[in-house]
């Protein structure tokens, strides 16, 4: 199985492909509309010298843009999730559930929380599919 360097465009493409190929995701996410940006705060001691901005876009079970972006584009997303690198890595490796990370204040969310709660299955499925991407994290490189 191929491995990808985490937080790179190739890694995002692999994640997008996993989602696009998932029939289960397509069914669960049939009502989801809108983009989600992921902001990973810089962690020089973890080999992430600058903050990473990721823009991901979903529409009724389909996947649209999945790109590294600048801060302005990230802040234009319908939902913005931000947090420390170590927390994102914990979420992406299933060490920490994303909902728990939000409730404990370890990740922050900007956007309609009601919509997120109603669609929590969709979010969990997207993260489940990320864990299937064989990732080499910056601090492991």
């Amino acid at each position, binding site marked *: 199985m191929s491995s990808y360097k985490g937080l790179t465009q190739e890694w995002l493409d692999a994640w997008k492909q996993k989602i696009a190929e998932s029939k289960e995701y397509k069914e669960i996410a049939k009502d989801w509309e809108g983009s989600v940006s992921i902001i990973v705060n810089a962690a020089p001691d973890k080999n992430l010298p600058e903050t990473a901005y990721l823009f991901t876009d979903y529409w009724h079970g389909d996947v649209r843009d999945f790109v590294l972006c600048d801060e302005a584009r990230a802040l234009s997303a319908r939902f913005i999730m931000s947090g420390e690198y170590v927390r994102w890595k914990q979420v992406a490796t299933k*060490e920490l559930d994303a909902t*728990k990370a939000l*409730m*404990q204040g*370890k990740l*922050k969310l900007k956007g309609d929380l*009601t*919509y997120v*709660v109603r669609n*929590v299955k969709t979010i969990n499925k997207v993260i489940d599919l990320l864990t299937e991407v064989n990732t080499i994290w910056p601090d492991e490189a």
Partner: protein
Amino acid sequence: MNGYAGKFLEVDLTTGAVAGFSLEEARLKKFIGGSSLAASLYLERYNLHADPLAPESPFMVMNGPLVGSGFPGSSRFAVAAKSPQTGIWGESACGGNFGPELKKAGFDGIVITGRSSTPVILSIADGEAIIAAADKLWGKDIYEATDMLKAEDKGWKVLAIGPAGENLVRFSAIGNDKAHFIGRTGLGAVMGSKKLKAIIVRGNKSSGKCDEEKFKAVSKEALQEIKESTFAESLHLMGSDVGMDLGMMNGDVPIKNWTVGEDFELSAKLSGPTMRETYLTKAHACANCPVACKRVVAVKDGPYQTEEGPGPEYETCCTFGTLIMNYDLAAVIKANELCNRYGMDTITAGATIAMAMELYEKGIISAQTADGLELTWGNMDTVCALLKKIACREGLGNILADGSLQAAAKLGAQGLDAVVHVKGLELPMHDPRGFHGMGLAYMMSNRGACHLQHAAMGMEQGMVSWPQLFEMKEDYQGTTSQGKAMLVFNSENYGILGNSLSICQYLMYCLKPETIRDGFNAVTGFNFEFQDLLLCGARDWTLKRGINNLLGISAKDDVLPKRILTPLSEGAAAGSVPDMQLLRDEYYAIRGLDARGVPTREKLSELGLTELINKLYT
């Protein structure tokens, strides 16, 4: 003394005597307030073996030191008595404005004994209390009675019972200003047994704080923490029913009397987001609470119309929704309103009806016994009719009015796994098969199966992380029993402080423990460290356990019901059941219980509970 009014009210409804008493600082430092203080008085001064509905059994209302201080979330007060439903220690806590008003009226608590020959109310204003006739109020539902009392003066804060309490329904609730309800363990029936229709209170006195400047600074910090909390935001937007969507996904939500593991259509129709988009008219807050998690709802069309009033909590959306296979949120709101008006605990009421539906399906309840009602799953017309029959103790309602355990015995269904309880109290709506720690918390809670007298839910479901208090994981796996005994032990010692300090448990989930500690110290001047507070929590648990031991509780009662030990075939908790023996053995060792389930002499001595040593070991 800072944080306390310094006076408790003692009322004998048989003689009409009204008096005040005070408690020494050493006792307050030991038990702080709330139900902990009530339990210490109960053990010391009253006959534990009296029937809960006998005149000599006390009915107690207790504040804590933070009530009335203005600290965020400090609205809570406790009501305590021997439970008419379970026959053991009973208590229930409540928010709203009654607690702060009682302190402004000059009292930290009220202890009521005796029985009036005619219906009365207790009226407390500015340090004075009088007993007044309530003949015109008797028979009125809680909304009507509250309106009549407030018609005289809107400033009164009201605790009132409805027809269920008057008729001694064993899971009667007490209404607080038509907005909050003291539901669990049936303490409304204790008021009813004393012919006490209501307690009304008002006052203008302010209680002192030890360090006003420090208090202001800590309160400001608390408000900032709440503002930044996603948990607080979710409660404000969706109320406690925010748990429905998340719970269905992780195996927390019970369905069809705990026999089905997953139904996403149910959760979608009954969830917090759905309530917000359909019947919510506004959010309502308790005193000094910036969160405003309480729902105010109205159903304006269809067969289940209601006036604008308090909306159902998550628990009620389950008991009158998922547990009985009702997909109609409007009908849940109607059932909630009926329980509020009649004065009944929505958890026990819904759970008892769920049991009855299962017994009807199995032919154990015949059509004749059901008074001609079709007790089929999801039949909400029947549910509404049955709630009235329960409150009025009519027909099948008279049987169900004693709660599911006693009703099952009368219906010839004792021992059947349709009765889902611990120590006679029906399980709240969190499935221990999805969260084994919650199962242990149910087993060991001192009022029977309880989700609130500890912080196990917040800790095990990952809503909180308190590494500064004790060692804990950021992410517990729900479907394992390993390590859960320590989780539950810690969660009890800290979570129970919400009751004695008088802070809402939801706010405890939003605030850092050091903020709560500092607020408490700024008010009282006690200068407690975390370990002092946790010791008070441990003392509280052990005191109530000792009382229950004296009432006959032992290891044989620390068990989960058969249904919860039966695995589900679908959903996130499929195939999982708590390892009851492992959980209990580990917990007993940590808690200092012997094989009988009784606190050891050494543990009692360590906690300074000498009176219990005398009573349990002589």
